């Protein structure tokens, strides 16, 4: 819960536009300095143990040598997680909440890929999955509960898909 509280505190201070943009640097409010992240334990079996006392900014929810995960939760109850490379570039996003987050702010220039993925052909009301092209996106859920993933395969750490949930 400590982390969640930090994230909530950070979220309330930040306008929505301060979210990370896919393919760019994470937002100042949701990212720790690179040097701070670099000192985190790079272990795949244990989560980093961020504590409230050691950080005045949000710290990664999870960190490996290949990437870090930052989480924020806004006033509407939407949780957004940003997957950040050591080079400080966001290569993936996930979201979950009662409505979709501001996808234009999160995806930046890739927002148009999301729109065209859905508008190029009809697929009913259900899951939108687009695995062709530079942006891969999976938009799922139903009114009241949405979740999804967007990522840039060219920036994806090699072992992430293969280690799916391992």
């Amino acid at each position, binding site marked *: 819960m400590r982390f969640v509280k930090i994230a909530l505190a950070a979220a309330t201070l930040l306008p929505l536009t301060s979210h990370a943009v896919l393919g760019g640097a994470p937002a100042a409010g949701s990212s720790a300095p690179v040097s701070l992240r670099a000192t985190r334990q790079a272990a795949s079996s244990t989560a980093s143990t961020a504590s409230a006392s050691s950080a005045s900014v949000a710290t990664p*929810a999870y960190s490996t040598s290949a990437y870090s995960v930052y989480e924020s939760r806004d006033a509407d109850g939407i949780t957004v997680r940003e997957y950040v490379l050591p080079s400080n570039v966001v290569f993936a996003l*996930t979201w979950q909440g*009662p409505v979709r987050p501001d996808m234009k702010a999160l995806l930046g220039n890739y927002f148009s890929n999301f729109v065209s993925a859905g*508008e190029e052909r009809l697929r*009913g009301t259900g899951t939108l999955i687009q695995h062709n092209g530079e942006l891969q996106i999976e938009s799922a859920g139903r009114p009241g509960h949405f*979740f999804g993933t967007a990522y840039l395969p060219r920036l994806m750490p090699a072992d992430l898909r293969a280690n799916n*949930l391992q």
Partner: protein
Amino acid sequence: MKTFSHTLGVALLSASVVLSACGGGSGESSTNSGINWPASASWPVTPTPPSPPVDTSNSVPIVVDTSMDAVNQPSVTVTLCPAGAPNNSQCVTVTNMLVDTGSVGVRVASSALSPALNAQLLTQVGATDDKVGSAPIVQCALFASGFTWGPIKRADVILGNKKASNIPIQVIGDGGYTAPDDCTSRGGPDLGPLLGANGNRAFNGIVGIGHFVRDSSLAAKSVIPAGYYYCPTTDSCTGTRVPLTRQVMNPVAGLATNNNGTVIRLPALPAGGQVRVTGQLIFGVGTQANNALPANANILQVDGNGLFTTQYQGRAIINSAIDSGTNGYAFSDATIPTTGEWYTPPSDQALSATMASTNGTGNPVMVQFSIGNATNMMGSGYAAYDNLGMYLASLPVYDVSTNNMLSEEGFLWGLPFFYGRSVYTVLENARVGTQAGPFVAF
């Protein structure tokens, strides 16, 4: 069973009234095959009842064909009329309305209605935060695949022989109001331009028959972004709460009888799929002979979003639903090859997963299913496939507070699951026998 028998009796009684009212019933009422009368039923009239005529006036045909512009999209025909119209002269019958157990309410493309009907539909006003109270209510309805934008209107919605009188519906793409930025930025793809006639194909709208009576309990309590708006002028819309009674309504809940849920009954498919499938959308569950919930039915309680938990390969996936609006099995299995969004294994994969209510009530249900090569099967150009799957990925996330793996993973049992089954979608606040809704059963 007592409640059930009572309900059945009442239903039969009312059914006979309906039948006589329509002059002896339709031609469809001649068959009663497949009906299992409860062995313990105590008939008030005679111990050896003659086969009673089966009342099918509570059902409409479901069609799965290529006219919906996508595979595995079940549709029904709906007639829309001005609320309270004295006759049917202003009504418009709209085909190709997607049957969607994943959403609530009727949403129809403006282009599928006549100009006269567009003009006759009553404007829904009275948003909670509209101090004047006379501004039209307009909705940004979010779906996984995008959004629909348009005003809320009141209409009589006729499904076969049944009518939902004076219920709020959404008219999509009437051009009357400009979608606000927070609708388009959260909605993403605008489904409006995709709806309506497209050559000899059409997708004219959605009949949302999910577990809930109204569209959004959340929007009744708080202003949510990309939700309901009130629009005093065509280009100034403000987010608002909307009382439940003024929200888009589940048309099944608006019926006078048979209003506690639905049964979707589709036939099993041959290997390789089928060019066209017809089945039934039946109104009511346990209210009359053709919608009885079998004693051995698998029952899954669902949560406030219509979701339950699916366990697949050791993972408990809480974002799980049986959803007629999703056209394949959507889940994550990194061992199956994909092409684009679709699974394309070299040979059919026999898989299984276990469904259970997230709150732990009831019994888990193991379900076996098959995933075939989407590229190969869709080469036939058919509309219906029962082994179509898509890769719904997930990314690993830890919660540092609990050291637990979290997951945005989902497992959607789309239309392939419905073939060869009767799927019961029971509404909130409804009760079938001793079982309280909302639940899904099959």
